[in-house]
């Protein structure tokens, strides 16, 4: 018979015993075998290496969390705190979330769909990506568990968010990134005083190193040993979408995929709100989007497989460049169960997607946003998202961070001397209405 799981240093320096305050959490539970663990800093089941996930006391949550309660709270992601994995009040990132859900009529017309919404985490606080959601949860929980040093393996956005939120919380911070990331993302980590380590390798190699470092040092690695808590923060994007749509689940949601975690957590947010009676249970489809240069999940989805083949990434969408996605299997399952689909787009299509969103809605997304828009366009054209339906596009990061990817592809300035004659010689105002003398 298998021995009981140990209580060891992986629980964190000051973990509270299970009998004390643990909020609405019950335990960490293996997604594969269901084995339960104490609510510490650990992420893998030692019986089958399956990922651990937070289990909640939904019966108790149902007695306390209602639309009215939520609506009375400040407009941040923490208005859904019973469904987020912290024991007490959040201490890091209390202002994160509740980003705009934009009704995108002009983009809807261009893509050929009746109704389109853009969930705009490109303006999330404080570092302009959806990662602020997961980081505020991971660091709040890290503080609860007594950690003083936090760390992450990152493709950029996560590094920015961990660096900024750690600085605000007074925590020591290490971020590990591929050495060739966009300058915007590197500077956006360094400025907060974080220890930034550039690894000569792609993200999967960075992550592998961090898995080894996390096993050796007593740090809270947000996407390694704190992953069960961290990943739950993504649900808040889905909770907000439902509330901002007027307490309903969207028919179609298009989500970009790196590890695939965000897609699975948006699905979980729809499941939780409908299970708790906060929204009516109506059918929904979740569609996954990747870059063709790194498409292990959508390649498997299109081939009808429930497993993926790892890849060596080669795409301008560096924030999605994970060739061995940890949640790929679960993302495939969500797409299949909801009747959704997946597709991928080329680097040129990604840039075109960025332009479309910017020109139609005034939203400048990073490359991952170009992936989402590009794939949505394909799925609508293929009829997988019907033209007479309604869809939400999840935009996860800000274009100001990935300028390198679009420089030279979005037009050029035309330079003249400060002379009216030279301006008119450009011909750009030909035919424009003149002011009456």
């Amino acid at each position, binding site marked *: 018979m298998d021995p009981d799981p140990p209580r060891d240093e992986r629980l964190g320096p000051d973990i509270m015993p299970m009998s004390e305050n643990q909020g609405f959490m019950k335990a960490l539970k293996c997604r594969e075998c269901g084995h339960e663990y104490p609510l510490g800093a650990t992420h893998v089941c030692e019986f089958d290496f399956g990922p651990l996930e937070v289990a909640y006391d939904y019966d108790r949550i149902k007695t306390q969390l209602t639309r009215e309660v939520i609506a009375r709270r400040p407009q941040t992601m923490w208005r859904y705190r019973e469904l987020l994995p912290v024991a007490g009040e959040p201490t890091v990132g209390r202002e994160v979330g509740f980003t705009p859900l934009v009704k995108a009529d002009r983009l809807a017309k261009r893509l050929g769909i009746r109704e389109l919404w853009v969930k705009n985490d490109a303006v999330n606080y404080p570092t302009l990506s959806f990662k602020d959601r997961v980081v505020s949860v991971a660091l709040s929980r890290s503080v609860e568990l007594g950690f003083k040093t936090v760390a992450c393996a990152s493709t950029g956005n996560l590094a920015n968010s961990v660096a900024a939120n750690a600085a605000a919380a007074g925590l020591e911070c290490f971020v590990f990134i591929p050495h060739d990331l966009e300058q915007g993302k590197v500077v956006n980590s360094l400025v907060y005083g974080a220890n930034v380590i550039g690894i000569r390798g792609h993200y*999967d190699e960075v992550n592998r190193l961090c898995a080894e470092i996390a096993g050796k040092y007593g740090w809270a690695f947000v996407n390694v040993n704190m992953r069960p808590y961290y990943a739950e923060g993504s649900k808040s994007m889905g909770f907000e979408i439902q509330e901002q749509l007027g307490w309903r689940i969207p028919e179609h949601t298009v989500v970009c995929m790196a590890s695939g975690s965000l897609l699975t957590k948006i699905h979980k947010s729809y499941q939780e709100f409908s299970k708790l009676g906060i929204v009516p249970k109506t059918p929904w489809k979740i569609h996954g989007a990747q870059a063709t240069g790194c498409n292990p999940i959508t390649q498997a989805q299109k081939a009808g497989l429930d497993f993926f083949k*790892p890849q060596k990434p080669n795409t301008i969408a560096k924030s999605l460049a994970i060739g061995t996605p940890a949640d790929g299997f679960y993302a495939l399952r969500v797409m299949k169960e909801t009747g959704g689909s997946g597709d991928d787009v080329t680097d040129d299509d990604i840039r075109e997607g960025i332009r479309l969103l910017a020109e139609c809605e005034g939203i400048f997304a990073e490359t991952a946003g170009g992936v989402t828009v590009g794939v949505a366009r394909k799925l609508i054209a293929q009829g997988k998202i019907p033209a007479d339906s309604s869809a939400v596009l999840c935009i996860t990061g800000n274009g100001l961070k990935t300028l390198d990817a679009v420089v030279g592809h979005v037009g050029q300035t035309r330079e003249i001397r400060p002379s009216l004659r030279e301006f008119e010689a450009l011909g750009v105002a030909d035919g424009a209405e003149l002011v009456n003398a």
Partner: protein
Amino acid sequence: MIRISIPPTLRRFFGGEDVVHVSAQTVTDAIDQMQGRFHGVRERLCREDGRIRGSVLVFVNDQDIRFLDEQNTTLRPGDEVTIIPAFAGG
């Protein structure tokens, strides 16, 4: 001999060792040898059909065996094998 690094999650099944040494021809051989010395290791690393679980990553000299010959990847004396849990997004 081949050097195998054991992740913290599994160490108690290896008597607390962080490194073990085997003399094996392939990754499958190495797992068999570890199973012989430390009972219960195979079922933690492999599914019932004998294939390595999707949640387990194995590297030989820093190369992911999924890009090599998977479990049939050849091992040579002096090779270093690393076992770690599948990792997540960033």
